[in-house]
């Protein structure tokens, strides 16, 4: 296999000659030149805005061009050749040109004369000619300047040909003959003189002398190639072709985090099947492929193979990169401990070799890992020289700025913001970091960081309870930036949209969003896993709300298998919370409470007044408590507390949840977890209700409700409304007790308000398809009517209750009444 030249490049050169000879008509000019540039220039230039699918199509076209001459026919046959008789098109013209190269010597001539036919004289050459007293060449149509893309291609081809050894030239010639041969039948129709041996003029001429022996001579010269059953001819490609294809694929894979599409991969494999020289990069491609497909052993095998071949190339040691890749793969497959060890070694090696780029990358990665898995890193912090997280970040930021690693810089800023959010620090600090990060992104055009940035800002808006903003940010990303960013980001944010829709009860839309994802992109194992997880979560929530507990159990049994090794901690928490809910719905409150306590103790809370924290068991919560609890997500803690309060109130001892509710509220307030704050208010109001402090509860709820509606947390709003109704009913009772009975109107107003609140709660729960809660509300309504003596309405409510129950559950359940 040759280094640069291949038969398809000869054909491209021939087309460039058409351009020079003026064979292209006006309408052909742009498509043909476009075609040429697409194959001559670096494919990544100027095409990044195209959708990934289009990019893959280009790669496919490049492969087909290298493999078969018929690709040229598709492009050229549509255009007439203007310098030939009418009826001849450019395809005929190309064949004419290619068949004119009728012997090895003609091939030499073709390349020898290439510069003189195509290239314009440089100024220097003109000057030298003038010095020698030669007249300047007459202007003769188009000539390529030396540095134009075509000119440099022509020069490169010429140079590469001159560098070839004879046997390589012969190889090129044979490959060319084979590449051209499929057109022989067509060419014979156009050109009746064409004979069986026309592929080599020497043979054709020699036929006269050699007679029947010509075949023997031909076989001696061309070997098995001429025999029909040549099964595995060397492919007509050059190392350069294969390498550029490989680089393209790896770039795509790395940039978008997807796998190579099936058909491209098959075609490519076909192409390089018989290559004697496989570039080392192909091992890397294999590695990424098996990595993405989740094939653990072979991905390690390929990675090692790749680095075994390339460890020492170009006088530089690439050990640190090998370690870096290894670490990433290990953590990707959930071997975090090994990953940490590998990464530490990578950092040490990079320091040793003064490879700043690698060092910074490794440090950044290490920091991200430490955020995700604090327990792994913690023991190292004292002994290693890495320092604590914040110091590390500061170091990274300055280093990245110095060395101009924009991606690293922006990611360090983002990490800072994330850390601030996690620890419940001031929102403004976090926002400041984010704005600075966005500044870097915008200024340096670091497109790949847009995804993480948007993800973080969505999270921020969510925390602040401004759902509209978060939805808009999400949409902005998906509509504007999705095609230039890593595929993972796209998937995550799409899942997030789906989750938001599900939390508003729009399950079908959520499913539609999830199903709309390109199935080809899901060929990556992790992506598909994540996608399935999201779908399962949406479905689980719907099942729970519909009281379809068996199906929910089946789903939970699968979902609980996910530990923090392979999914984000947020999702793990969500799964656990849903599990608690499922337990509660089954009425197994003891198990639910125990589980919440476990989770709480794992999250580092000391304020639970339940039994002393037990050691968490197994996979459910492998995160051990940190002494300071510094890195524990406040968000998770508050949610757990709230769940516990709910459970306590459901088990009939709401007053025990008072401190918990207070604590949750204060934590949420301090960390500006506003959405959770309103929930805490609801919980607190429930406790207050149970304590008979109806007025206080009502005031609290009336203040919290609008904000809660703003956050678009429909289910929470329903809960708040139901608490509000309770408080108002309580107020009515208090009024009656206090002798407000005379002022029936005030009582009536309050009662109407209670009904309104119940109706609103009813709406919310209906939107969430939460049958249980709907029934609860209807029962309350019916009780109220009965208390008022309005038996008809009470009866109506009871009927609706039964209808809802039948409709939603469809089974005779253990309903609460």
């Amino acid at each position, binding site marked *: 296999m040759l280094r640069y030249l291949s038969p398809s490049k000869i054909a491209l050169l021939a087309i460039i000659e058409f351009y020079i000879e003026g064979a292209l008509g006006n309408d052909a000019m742009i498509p043909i030149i476009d075609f040429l540039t697409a194959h001559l220039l670096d494919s990544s230039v100027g095409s990044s805005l195209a959708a990934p699918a289009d990019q893959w199509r280009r790669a496919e076209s490049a492969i087909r061009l290298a493999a078969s001459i018929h690709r040229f026919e598709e492009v050229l046959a549509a255009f007439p050749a203007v310098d030939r008789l009418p009826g001849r098109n450019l395809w005929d013209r190309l064949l004419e040109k290619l068949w004119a190269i009728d*012997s090895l010597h003609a091939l030499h001539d073709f390349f*020898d004369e290439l510069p003189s036919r195509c290239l314009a004289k440089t100024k220097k050459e003109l000057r030298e000619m003038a010095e020698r007293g030669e007249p300047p060449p007459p202007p003769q149509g188009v000539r390529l300047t030396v540095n134009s893309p075509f000119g440099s291609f022509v020069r490169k081809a010429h140079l590469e040909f001159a560098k070839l050894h004879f046997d390589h030239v012969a190889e090129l010639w044979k490959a060319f003959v084979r590449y051209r041969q499929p057109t022989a039948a067509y060419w014979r129709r156009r050109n009746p003189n064409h004979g069986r041996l026309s592929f080599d003029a020497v043979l054709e001429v*020699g036929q006269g002398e*050699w007679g029947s*022996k010509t075949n023997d001579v031909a076989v*001696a010269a061309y070997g098995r190639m001429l025999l029909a059953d040549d099964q595995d001819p060397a492919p007509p490609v050059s190392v350069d072709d294969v390498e550029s294809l490989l680089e393209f694929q790896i770039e795509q894979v790395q940039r978008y985090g997807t796998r190579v599409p099936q058909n491209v991969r098959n075609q490519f494999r076909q192409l390089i099947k018989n290559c004697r020289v496989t570039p080392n990069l192909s091992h890397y491609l294999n590695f990424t492929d098996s990595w993405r497909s989740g094939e653990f052993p072979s991905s390690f095998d390929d990675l090692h193979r790749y680095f075994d071949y390339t460890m020492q190339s170009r006088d530089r040691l690439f050990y640190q990169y090998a370690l870096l890749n290894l670490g990433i793969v290990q953590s990707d497959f959930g071997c975090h401990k090994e990953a940490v060890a590998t990464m530490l070694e990578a950092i040490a090696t990079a320091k040793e070799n003064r490879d700043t780029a690698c060092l910074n990358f490794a440090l950044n990665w290490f920091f991200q890992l430490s955020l995700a898995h604090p327990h792994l890193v913690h023991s190292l912090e004292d002994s290693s020289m890495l320092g604590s997280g914040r110091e590390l970040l500061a170091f990274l930021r300055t280093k990245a700025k110095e060395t101009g690693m924009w991606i690293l810089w922006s990611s360090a800023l983002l990490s800072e913001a994330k850390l601030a959010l996690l620890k419940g620090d001031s929102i403004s600090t976090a926002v400041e970091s984010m704005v600075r990060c966005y500044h870097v992104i915008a200024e340096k055009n670091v497109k790949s960081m847009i995804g993480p940035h948007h993800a973080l800002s969505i999270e921020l808006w969510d925390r602040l309870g401004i759902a509209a903003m978060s939805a808009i940010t999400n949409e902005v990303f998906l509509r504007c930036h999705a095609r230039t960013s890593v595929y993972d980001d796209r998937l995550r944010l799409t899942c997030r949209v789906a989750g938001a829709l599900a939390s508003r009860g729009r399950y079908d839309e959520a499913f539609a969003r999830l199903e709309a994802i390109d199935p080809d992109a899901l060929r990556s194992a992790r992506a598909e896993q994540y996608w399935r997880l999201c779908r399962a979560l949406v479905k689980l929530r719907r099942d729970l709300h519909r009281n379809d507990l068996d199906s929910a159990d089946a789903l939970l049994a699968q979902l609980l298998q996910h530990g923090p090794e392979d999914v984000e901690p947020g999702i793990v928490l969500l799964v656990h919370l849903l599990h608690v809910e499922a337990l509660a719905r089954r009425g197994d409150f003891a198990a639910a409470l125990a589980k919440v306590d476990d989770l709480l103790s794992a999250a580092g809370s000391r304020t639970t007044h339940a039994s002393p924290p037990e050691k968490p068991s197994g996979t459910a919560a492998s995160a051990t408590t940190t002494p300071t609890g510094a890195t524990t997500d406040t968000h998770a803690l508050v949610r757990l507390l709230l769940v516990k309060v709910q459970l306590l109130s459901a088990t009939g001892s709401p007053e025990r949840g008072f401190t918990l509710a207070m604590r949750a509220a204060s934590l949420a307030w301090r960390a500006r977890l506003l959405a959770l704050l309103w929930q805490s208010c609801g919980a607190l109001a429930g406790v207050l209700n149970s304590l008979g402090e109806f007025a206080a509860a009502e005031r609290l709820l009336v203040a919290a409700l609008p904000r809660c509606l703003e956050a678009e947390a429909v289910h929470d709003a329903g809960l708040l409304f139901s608490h509000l109704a309770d408080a108002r009913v309580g107020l009515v009772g208090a009024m009656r007790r206090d002798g407000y009975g005379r002022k029936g109107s005030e009582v009536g107003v309050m009662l109407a308000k209670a009904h309104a609140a119940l109706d609103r709660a009813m709406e919310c729960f209906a939107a969430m398809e939460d049958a249980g809660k709907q029934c609860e509300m209807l029962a309350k309504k019916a009780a109220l009517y009965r208390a008022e003596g309005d038996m008809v309405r009470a009866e109506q409510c009871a009927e609706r209750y039964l209808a809802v129950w039948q409709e939603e559950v469809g089974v005779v359940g253990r309903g609460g009444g």
Partner: protein
Amino acid sequence: MGLSAKDSLQLREALQTAVVKCSERCLYQSAKWAAELLDALPEPDLDTPMAEDVAEPAVHPAFAPNPDPAEAALEARELSRYLLARSFFDCKEFERCAAVFLPEPLLASLLGTDPADVAPPKAKGKAKAGAVPAVSSDDRLPELSQKSLFLALYAKIIAGEKHKDEEAEMIMGPHDSGAVVNKQLVVVSRFLARWFAKRKADDADYPPTQGFLEYLYGMVLAKEKNDNLALEYLMQSVHLFPWNWGAWQEMTNLISRVEQLNKIAPHLPQNIMSFIFHANAAVNLYQQGPDQAASVNDLLSIFPTSSFLLTCKALLCYHSKDLFAAEHEFNKVLALHPFRLDALDHYSNILYVLNRRPKLAFLAHLCSNIDKFRPESCVVIGNYYSLLSLHEKAVQYFRRALILDRSCLSAWTLMGHEYVELKNTHAAIESYRRAVDVNRRDYRAWYGLGQTYEVLEMHAYALWYYKKAAGLRPWDAKMWQAVGSCLQKMGRDRDGIKALKRALLADSYYDTATAAAAAAPPSSFAGGGGDRTAQMDPEVLLQIATMYDRLGELDEAKAYMELCLAQEEGINAAADDSAGRAAGGGLGESVAVHDSPGSDAEAEAADPATREGTGVTFATSKARMWLARYAIQTRDYATANRLAMELCQDGVEVEEAKALMRQARSGLAELGSAPGGGASSSVAGEDLHHRRQSRG
């Protein structure tokens, strides 16, 4: 020369035996040669041999045991060890192969010590490794069958060659003096000397040997440059076993002159091998002529498809400058044996000279496809690159050829040519020198050396080398011309004239010879009868004339000038001069330096045209100018005017011609009418005619 069925059968059997015998001794090249020849023998008629086949016993003579009972017994005894040694040889473990029969300590004891030494440690016979002290120096040789002995010693030599190649420095590197020697030669030669001495000592009771050991000894002696003794042993060998082509080839290499060949011819056995040898040796000595062609054609009638003989024929045509016929012959060989690479380097030379670029490219492709690591392939490719004027690449390939085989003669010479092109005269001289060292008969290398020295303006040296070349090819005008012009530059005009006259003579000699050689049946290219008058090179004539001019012999000078002018018209004075001029001018420039056959090409390619005259060339114009001036000096203004006018017409040196014309006209005007003008020119013509006859 037809063969009777019986003869043919015998020949077949002999060749079959030869193949078996040679390959038993691992003489693969000889075996191959014999097998090829065998293959070229037409299949016998099916009727007659059938009966004989039935009658004959099952054992073919090739597999019959050795007729000598003693040898047969020894061979039978050694069979297993022989097989062992043989398989080692086949696996290229030469030292090990030799050690099977002649372990190193034994050899050392036999040869390392002086024969007069008193303490010979090792014994003989069956107890070779034993410690029985030897009785007499004669008896110490191990008792081995000749076959095993040959194999062991031959393996020794091959091992030595291999070591030699390994020790050799990079081709033309700073330490590559070509002085590395095969260290095993001494051992083997001593051993054989003793072996033969012993046999001679107690002759009588030995039956004749098989001839192979003689061949081996001859080869070793030849390598040691002991040519006469080597020849003697080789002659013995071919007398004993004529079917070993290797022996004949060694002899060919040893014979450096035709006279020598003719001298030994009567002493050779009279059989077909000697006939083939004679033909081949003559070809290698650049002989040509009708009898040569006839003998090759005779042989070809016996072996019609023999690639070897066809190659011989092609080379014969090549040496007699009939390039088209040579090309045709090689083409035939290629078609018959498309996978045979031998001698294709000569073919590429021919294609080079004929400037058949596509064909040469095809040939190079073919060679490279069959085996790119054969010296022949590399030479072909190098020639192709040289034709494309890619001299660096050409040098690279010739170098590769030399790495593969240091004794590749044509590669050395051609590399010299390339270095000349690259203006690297030192390297050129060195590679020519190496070529000459490899084979002193390579006139092209001698000629190249001369040319290089001429470029360096060291004419005395150049003359020496040109003379060498001319000695090798006495009938090559090119050589004599070079000698002549060299002499001219040294100011030795008399000798120069002699040499150039010889060149003119040689030209005419070749023309007739070619015609005769080409009379052989299939060559359709070389037409023309042998009786036409020789065409002479105007350049040479001009050179002779100027030398006479310098010597002050104006009459002679004038005569040659006119003769030179006469070439313009030639014999038939046809109008086909443009073709001739193109052929002469186009090729000469680039080719002349590269390869002396290049000049042949000039002559050859121009051949069909020159028959009709050369047309106006630079040389004839010069002559015309000289004649015009001379005419003015002798006041023959009419002639001067005519010549000057012709000069103007030809468009050469018009200004000067016009000046001459003016001068002549004014002279004419002075004289008034000059009736003697026409007469004098006719006198000159007669004179010329007379002169030619006297020479011819």
